[in-house]
């Protein structure tokens, strides 16, 4: 399975797709101009991207879906307001998007229903991420606040009615717009890193709900990516450098970068807009305002590949394993249609009219493999033998009866045969005797 780099731009230049290893360009998906954090792959089934407004006066902007095989937009949804950041869970059950009004929308992918919409922030939602176990949603806003939402709580109407805040934490140490937020590994003890236009990155503890570390950078950080071991993290800066900041390593203040900043990767590019880490744990991919995508080897600190996406700035870069195409080919046309998600609804269904929400069961994995337990003759035979030996069941008795009956019949036949033989013999002898007598007499 190869890993793909997928990138989109803030100007309509389509979505570019490259093989991470070879750098070969794949299919280019058409017509997309997406805001930062607005490009996701929904459980590797399809690509989804929120779109920027075509002109500032229009009140809405669509969300597009592309299936992997076709460059054209497959599904167009028109949410109530232009959606900025998008996030989806690994099952591909939900798509969550944030709007400029500060509202967060949660759609069910399989039905397209808007399951929930709530006002999360006072200003525009700028970035969204899910915690490692996907039970907490972390949202960042233009006003600098970061909130942590337990997804279960969002659907808990009773808790909501009680008037409590449904968010678990509200971090408001950032003074300006939050530009990016990522969450680290760990069940309940993970860390969250956020970057902001106040030129800092802040590290938060989810278990304690407090700030652990704040790191000041020379310029605004727009993108962050965490090293898989969480020793360091990478911060893409508007000055074109990618800074390496310490999380779990000693900070050695030899280079003059600032506190906790260890190193930087630089290729004299324009501002870094997005970062993504590959699954191999070594390759870091960055997108830049100059329209180029750079692949870095984080071990050596060298840039290993330069890919040209467009003349316009790159707004999103994501990396994921290519979906399994063989599976898709075997599907019927109808099924394929069913697998592609329906458009996302604009409004929540009112619950009053009795139409209740239904979950859609997706095909998890159709396995045609037979397990050995599906054969039954041998076990049936064994149990029947047992029955026979113990002569317990009526069936066994019946068969025994049949057997005895057959035996009896055969014995009867035998008896008949013997009888006949005997009779024959007797008659022969009698005849012979009589004949003999006759002979004697004659």
């Amino acid at each position, binding site marked *: 399975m190869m890993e793909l780099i997928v990138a989109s731009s803030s100007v309509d230049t389509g979505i570019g797709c490259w093989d991470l290893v070879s750098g070969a360009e794949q299919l280019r998906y058409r017509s997309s101009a997406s805001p930062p954090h607005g490009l996701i792959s929904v459980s590797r089934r399809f690509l989804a991207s929120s779109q920027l407004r075509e002109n500032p006066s229009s009140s809405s902007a669509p969300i597009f879906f592309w299936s992997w095989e076709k460059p054209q937009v497959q599904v167009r949804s028109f949410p109530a307001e232009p959606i900025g950041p998008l996030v989806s869970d690994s099952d591909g059950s939900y798509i969550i998007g944030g709007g400029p009004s500060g509202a967060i929308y949660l759609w069910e992918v399989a039905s397209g229903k808007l399951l929930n919409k709530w006002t999360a922030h006072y200003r525009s939602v700028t970035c969204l991420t899910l915690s490692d176990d996907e*039970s907490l949603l972390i949202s960042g806003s233009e006003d600098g606040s970061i909130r942590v939402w337990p997804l279960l709580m969002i659907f808990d109407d009773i808790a909501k009615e*009680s008037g409590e805040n449904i968010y*678990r934490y509200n971090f408001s140490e950032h003074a300006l717009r939050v530009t990016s937020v990522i969450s680290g590994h760990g069940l309940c003890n993970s860390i969250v890193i956020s970057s902001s236009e106040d030129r800092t990155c802040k590290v938060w503890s989810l278990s304690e709900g407090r700030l652990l570390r704040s790191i000041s950078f020379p310029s605004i950080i727009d993108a962050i990516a965490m090293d898989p071991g*969480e020793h360091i993290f990478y911060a893409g800066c508007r000055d074109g450098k990618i800074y390496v900041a310490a999380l*779990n390593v000693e900070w050695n203040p030899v280079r003059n970068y600032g506190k906790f900043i260890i190193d930087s990767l630089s290729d004299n590019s324009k501002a870094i807009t997005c970062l993504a880490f590959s699954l191999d744990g070594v390759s870091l991919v960055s997108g830049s305002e100059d329209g180029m995508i750079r692949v870095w080897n984080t071990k050596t600190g060298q840039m290993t590949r330069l890919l040209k996406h467009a003349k316009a700035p790159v707004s999103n870069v994501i990396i994921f394993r290519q979906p399994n195409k063989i599976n898709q080919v075997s599907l019927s046309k109808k099924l394929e249609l069913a697998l592609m998600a329906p458009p996302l609804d604009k409004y929540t269904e009112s619950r009053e009219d009795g139409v209740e929400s239904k*979950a859609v069961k997706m095909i998890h994995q159709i396995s045609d493999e037979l397990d050995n337990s599906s054969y039954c003759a041998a076990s*049936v035979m064994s149990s029947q033998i047992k029955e026979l030996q113990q002569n317990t069941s009526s069936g066994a008795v019946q068969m025994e009866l049949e057997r005895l009956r057959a035996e009896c019949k055969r014995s009867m036949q035998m008896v008949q045969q013997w009888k006949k033989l005997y009779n024959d013999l007797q008659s022969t002898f009698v005849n012979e005797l009589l004949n003999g007598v006759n002979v004697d007499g004659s």
Partner: protein
Amino acid sequence: MAAAAAAAAAAEFFSGMDDCRLKPPMLRSVLRDRLPDEKRPFRPAELTAVLSHMRTHGLLSERHSDIAERKLVEAWRSAVDGWVERVLSLASNSAPDKCWAGICLLGVTSEECCSDRFQSSYAIWFQKLIENFQSPSATHFIKVACCASLADLFTRLACFPYLKKDGTLLARKVIQPVMQILNEDVGETLWDVAVKLLCTLMSFFPSSIRQHYDTVEAVLTSKIMAAKCDLNTSKKFSLGLAILPKVKGDEESFCLIIEKILIAINSILTDAFQGLEEEKKSSEVMRMIVPPGKDPPPPLGGQTLPGEAFEPATRRLSELLVPRVTTLMHSCCVMLTNPYPFPVSIPVRPLIATVRRVLQVDGSFNGTLFPLITSTHQELLCAVLPALHLGCLDFLIAIIKGLRSQLLPHGANVVRLLTEYFRRARMPSIRRKVYSIVQMLLISMGVGMSLYLAQEVINNAFADLTDNLELGSSAMLSNMQSSILVGGTFRQNYHKKRKRDASVIPVEHSNGVDLSVKTCSKKSQAPLSVKIAALKALEALLTMGGSLKSECWRLDVDFLVIIVATNAFDSSWANENRLCLLKDESSFADYQLATLEVLLASLLSPTHTRSPYLSQGLDLFRRGRQETGSKIATFCAHALLALEVLIHPRSLPLEDHPPPNNLSVGEGFNQSFASGNFNNSTKTNLPSFSKGDLGLLDEEDEEELSSGSFDEEGPTSLENRNLNDKYNSEDIMKKPLAINSEVSQHVLEYEDKISQNVGVEMEGFGRGETIIDKEKTEESTPRNEISFHNASPNKMDFGQGNSAVFAAEMTPWKSETLVNISVNMSNHGSNAPDLSIGKIKEDSSPRSLYKGKDAMLSYDSDSFSLDSLPDIVDGDPDSE
């Protein structure tokens, strides 16, 4: 020379039991000596030997490692030819026993033989089987064998996709006789295999069934409704019903069947629960299944429920209730959890409503003034209710499994349903199942779920696990006193004292929660299986939510875990090999294993302090590892490996960024760790920031303090720190805590909360918003009432604890801090509403707590007050 000799020897002898050349002669001798034929009489015991022989050695497989060996291939083929010939001739034998043997072996042959042979001769075999199957003289026994063999033949046939058409043709010939069997009263064994054959056809050759769709549905329904068969067979009927939609393979038929089943279940329930539940319940659920304005689907299985039509009046409804409902539910379970070739929508709300409906009926006259039913009816119903509840819990499990992440919108609903039920559940089997559901929910829905379930799990686990601790623990406790940390010892004493109090004068517990749980546990000791389930649920909780908002319960849970574990190993290591007389009964070894598992989770789950029981835990694992050959030893080895990382935390950076002085990292860590006060909650050992970071963090703190470089944060953290330092110097947080719901009122927790709230909420909102919070909290909406009285156990601890000191200490902070506490409590309450129901009278007391310092001071009267410093070791009051 020698090689040639060896080769010659090899030609004569076999190279061992795996030698393929062994097989043809073996098969031939089986044929010659074991298998009955025209002359040799039939002996059942010998047939068993033949069967096992064939299957162990794969005598029919004709699979050879060396294809080039033509001689072997030939020999084997002719041997199998002989076998097939003999089996076929047996199958046409007029003697019923030989005929039966032939049919059975034909079935086994179609499973075991090689593909080529199967493809070339399945038609003949099928012919032979169907002849016997349809022959009027066939006995019951032979029919059973025929069904089983046919099922195997079709199963094997399904392995060859290009034979699908042929298979469908053959399948059509079988359906009529099978349906006939199912319609006749022929006895359970035959039904069992017949429905198995039907299931095989439905799943592999669906098109053959398509025109019989309605008949099949009707037949299966009538069988389920008649409820004459035992559990296994009825499960097969329900399986048949569940895979029926696959015959059509579209969305509508799936939804229709599930809808019909739900209606059937609910109409049965309506009849059974008359007088035991609210009247409108039934119509409510029905409305959910069929929304108003929509035509209800035809009833399951056709026009009338055939089962009921000719039901003898002697069988009472309560007798039929459980088998019918559980079988139908099992159908739904299979439909929910198995893959379906098309995406379908699942009516989640009606499903959950049905579960809720069943679980809410506990056999009491629910709110009806004039009981409509006789006490006999009630008695009969109560007798079967546990089985019904168990079936229903299985149903719930299937819903959770089937929905996976899509349960999210209904998660809170399910949790509420479950926690309500958990409080009422008394029976061991039911409790065990509820624990396992809780465990499943915790693991699948993660941290968010642990916020909801923590309190419930802890309350119940404490009740189930502590019931016999006192009996056997005194010796162990005194042992432990010398070995563990001072604070821990104190904790124990406290714990024991409290326990004794509970048993002697339970009236003193104004806390209704505690009381009810205690008395219940005193009366009935939870069986091992329940304890194991409780431990597993606790393990899941520690794993998923061990450090998120867990300050209030973590210490007590850790304490419980170490006590339970040491207790379990106090006597001896259980012998796993000891024969268990009862199969279902969990052995003591399982219990020990479960305690070790939860102990590992408790040690590994991140906290802000080092676990005081680390060395005890390590000791247990070390000893356990020496129990050679047991599961416990395997697990202990694993635990030692996992804990090794805890003791030597590794941070292996990328090669590119080696820390300049690798050694100093470890040293720094050790130093800071060793010198740190482990009960000091402010200098946290952040697990994600292990090693040298601790030093860094401290450094950072210091810098912040001195330079005030963080403008937004500076003043708060400064004050915060001062506050905390003050507490540390008072050492007040070392007051140990009682178990159960009172858990949440640890002073330590307050301290944490203060620091947290100050850190997060105060800063986050500014004063204005906090005031809003305060107002919200003090609004006495009904919801708030509940949350307040949930928080009522506070009172106890304020009384016993050092809250007065605490309150006095924070005078400058008074208003804000108190508000924060109250907000937190109301959160807490609604997440995990507490056990008791009728405690409204206590409602006022906790609220008065927020009114000011005076209210709290008035509680300052118990034995554990200012002088309860951790270094004072009380004499063991329980050492009798």
